[in-house]
C-alpha cells in the first residue's frame, strides 16, 4: 500500500492558504472574512500534520491541537465583537464600517 | 476487479452497511409504534390497534402516508439548504451507528468482525464528532425555511445542543478514564464479568461507580436528542412545531427518523459505556443462561400462538400466524450452537438498548416540558458542574493508588 507523497499535502495546504487569502481580500462580509481566516488556519494545520507525519514526530500534531483551541477562543471573541458591531452599525459590510480613519 | 480483491474490506463493509441499513430502517419505523404503544399504556389507552394486530402495521401506513403527502417548499426558502437539512440530519444520525459494536469482535466473516461496521480505535471520539455535526440539520432547517418560528426553533435547538454537548462529553470522560481507551470493544472488554463489573456499578481498586455519570449522561442525552422534557425546539405550544414546521411529507419523516436514530445511538452509547455493551449480566459459570434468547423467543411464539387462536380475527389472524411462525423458526434456529454463539451478543445488547429506549419514552410520558431559561440554567449551572465533579472524583480515585504508593 503506497503512501501519498507529503509534498502533495503541502501543495494542497498552500493552495487552500492562497484561496483563504483571496477570500480574505475579496469578500466584504465580516463573518465571511473571519471564515477566510479560519480557512487559512486550517491550511496551516494541514501543513503541520503533514510535517509531523514526515518527521514521525508528534509535536506537529500538538501544535495543531493548540491552533484549534486558540482558534476556538478567537472565534468566540471575534463573533461577540461582530455582534456588537452589528448592533451599533446595523451592517456587516466591512467597507461600511470605516470610522477609524485619518 | 483486482482492486476489489486488493481491498476486501470494501466488500465486507458494503455488505454490513446494507444489512445495518435494512435493520435500522425497520427499527426506526417500529420505534414510533413502540413509543406510541408505551405512552398509550402509560396513559391507560390502547394506542394504535386497528391497523393490523396490535397496530403492528401502523408504521407501514404512516410511511405510505408520508410518501404520498404533497411535498411543498415555502416561498423564498433557500432551496438547496432546505433540501440539504433533513438529509444531513438523517445521514449523520444513521452514520454514528456504524461505529457501534452489536456483538463481540470474535464473530467474523472474511477476516472482518461482522457485528460492527467500523471498529475505530477512537470510536467514541468519532461518534461525538458525528453527533456534534448533527446540529446543522436542525439549524439549517430552521434557517432555510425562511419563516419566523422555524428560525427561533433552529436557534433554540442549536444553542441547546451545543450547551448540552459539553455536559454529555464530560459525563462520558469518567468512563474513558476508567477504561483507559476510546475503542468500544476494549471498553466493553474492560467491563467483562458479571453485571457488577459494569462501569455503572463497579466499585473496585482505582474505580468509581459511574452512577452519577450515567444520570448526567442520560439527561444530557435526552436534551441532545431534543426529546421531552427538553423538546423545546419543537415545542408545539409556543413554536408551532419548531424547526420542522415548514417541512412536509418525507422530509418531515426524515427528521423524525433522524430523531429516533439519535435516540438509538445515545442508547447504544449508554449501553456500551455504562452497561457493559454486549456482555451478559450473568457470570461466565452460568452456562445455562446462554439458552435465554431461544427460550425467550419460544415463549414469545407461544404467547403469540395463544393470541392468534383466541383473540385475533380476519387479516390480523393471518398476519399473526406469519409473525408466530417467524418467532418459532428463529427460536428453534437459535438452538443451533453456531447461531446460539452468534446471537448471544446482539441479544443482550439489544435488550439493554431497548430498556433504555423504554426509559426514554417513559420520561417523555411522565415529565412536563421545561421553560427555555430553566433548560439553559439547568444545563450550565447544574448538569455541567455535577459532571465535572464526577470527573474529578473519578480521576482522583483512579490515581489514588499511585499517590498512596508514592507515600
Amino acid at each position, binding site marked *: 500500500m*503506497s503512501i*501519498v507523497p*507529503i*509534498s502533495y*499535502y*503541502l*501543495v*494542497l495546504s*498552500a493552495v*487552500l492558504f*492562497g*484561496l483563504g*487569502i*483571496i*477570500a480574505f*481580500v*475579496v469578500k*466584504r462580509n465580516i463573518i*465571511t472574512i473571519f*471564515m477566510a481566516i*479560519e*480557512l487559512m488556519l486550517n491550511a496551516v*494545520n*494541514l501543513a503541520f*500534520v*503533514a510535517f*509531523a*507525519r*514526515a518527521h*514521525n514526530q*508528534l509535536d506537529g*500534531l500538538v501544535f495543531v491541537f*493548540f491552533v*484549534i483551541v486558540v*482558534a*476556538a*477562543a478567537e*472565534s*468566540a*471573541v471575534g*463573533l*461577540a465583537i461582530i*455582534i456588537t458591531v452589528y448592533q451599533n452599525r446595523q451592517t456587516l459590510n466591512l467597507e461600511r464600517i470605516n470610522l477609524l480613519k485619518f | 476487479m483486482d482492486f476489489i480483491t486488493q*481491498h476486501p474490506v470494501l466488500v465486507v463493509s458494503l455488505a454490513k452497511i446494507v444489512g445495518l441499513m435494512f435493520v435500522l430502517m425497520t427499527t426506526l419505523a417500529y420505534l414510533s409504534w413502540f413509543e406510541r404503544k408505551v405512552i398509550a399504556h402509560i396513559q391507560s389507552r390502547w394506542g394504535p390497534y386497528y391497523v393490523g394486530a396490535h397496530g403492528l402495521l401502523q408504521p407501514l401506513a404512516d410511511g405510505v402516508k408520508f410518501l404520498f403527502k404533497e411535498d411543498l417548499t415555502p416561498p423564498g426558502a*433557500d432551496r438547496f*439548504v432546505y433540501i440539504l437539512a433533513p438529509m444531513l440530519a438523517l445521514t449523520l444520525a444513521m452514520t454514528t451507528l456504524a461505529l457501534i459494536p452489536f456483538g463481540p469482535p470474535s464473530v467474523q466473516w472474511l477476516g472482518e468482525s461482522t457485528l460492527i461496521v467500523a471498529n475505530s*480505535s477512537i470510536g467514541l471520539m468519532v461518534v461525538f*464528532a458525528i453527533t*456534534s*455535526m448533527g*446540529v446543522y440539520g436542525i*439549524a*439549517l432547517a430552521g*434557517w432555510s425555511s425562511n419563516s419566523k418560528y422555524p*428560525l427561533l426553533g433552529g436557534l433554540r435547538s*442549536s*444553542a441547546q445542543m*451545543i450547551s448540552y*454537548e459539553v455536559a454529555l462529553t464530560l459525563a462520558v470522560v469518567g468512563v474513558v478514564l476508567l477504561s483507559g481507551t*476510546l475503542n468500544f470493544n476494549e471498553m466493553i472488554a474492560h467491563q467483562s464479568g458479571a453485571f457488577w463489573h459494569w462501569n455503572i456499578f463497579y466499585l473496585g481498586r482505582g474505580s468509581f461507580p459511574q452512577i452519577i455519570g450515567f444520570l448526567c449522561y442520560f439527561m444530557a442525552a435526552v436534551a441532545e436528542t431534543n426529546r421531552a422534557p427538553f423538546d423545546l425546539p419543537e415545542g408545539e405550544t409556543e413554536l408551532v412545531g419548531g424547526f420542522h414546521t415548514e417541512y412536509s411529507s418525507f422530509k418531515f419523516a426524515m427528521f423524525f427518523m433522524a430523531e429516533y436514530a439519535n435516540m438509538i445511538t445515545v442508547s447504544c452509547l449508554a449501553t456500551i459505556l455504562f452497561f457493559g455493551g454486549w456482555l451478559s449480566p450473568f457470570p461466565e459459570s452460568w452456562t445455562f443462561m446462554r439458552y435465554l434468547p431461544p427460550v425467550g423467543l419460544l415463549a414469545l411464539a407461544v404467547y403469540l400462538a395463544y393470541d392468534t387462536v383466541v383473540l385475533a380475527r380476519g387479516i390480523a389472524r393471518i398476519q399473526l400466524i406469519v409473525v408466530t411462525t417467524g418467532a418459532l423458526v428463529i427460536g428453534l434456529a437459535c438452538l443451533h450452537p453456531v447461531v446460539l454463539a452468534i446471537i448471544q451478543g446482539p441479544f443482550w445488547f439489544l435488550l439493554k438498548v431497548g430498556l433504555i429506549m423504554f426509559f426514554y419514552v417513559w420520561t417523555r410520558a411522565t415529565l412536563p416540558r421545561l421553560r427555555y431559561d430553566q433548560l439553559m440554567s439547568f444545563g450550565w449551572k447544574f448538569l455541567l458542574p455535577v459532571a465535572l465533579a464526577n470527573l474529578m472524583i473519578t480521576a482522583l480515585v483512579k490515581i489514588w493508588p499511585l499517590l498512596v504508593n508514592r507515600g
Partner: protein
Amino acid sequence: MTLPFIVFFVCAALAVLAALTLILAREPIHSALALVLVMVSLAVLYLLLGAEFIAAVQIIVYAGAIMVLFVFVIMLLNAGVEERTDYSKLAKYAGLPLGIFLLLALAYWMLESFIGKQIANGLGGTNASVSTRELSAQLFQKYLFPFEATSILILIAILGALVLAKKDE
C-alpha cells in the same frame, strides 16, 4: 492508483472546490457550509495521515463548535446577501491578482521545496496511525505549560465574549 491516492484526490478536490465556493457564494450561510465541507475533507486527510485524534478534534471543535457558532451568528444577525461594494480601489484592482500570485508562488514553492521532495521519497514511510496515548503523553508532559496557558486563554476568551455580547443595562 491505490485507495489512499483516490481518497486523497477526492478529498483534495472537495476541499478546493469548497474553498472556491466559499469565495464565490454570496450567502454567508453557503460560505459557512462550504467551510464546513473543507474542514470535513481535511479531517479525512488527517485520517489518511494517521492522525485520528486530530481528525476527531478537527470535526468536533471546528465543524461541530466553531462553525456552528458562525452559523448561529449568521442566523442571529440574519445576515443577508453580501453587497458587492468596491470602495477600496486597491482591493478591487490589486487584491485578486496578488492573491492568485501568492497562491501560485506558494504552491510552486511547496512543490519544489527541498523538504517536500525529501519526504516524497518516502521518508515518512510508516503507515501506522499515531496512538492517542502517545499524543496525550506529549500534551500533558512535554507541553504541559502551554496546555495550561491555553486553558487560561480560553477562560479569558469566554469572559471577554460574555462582556462583549451582553446587553449593557
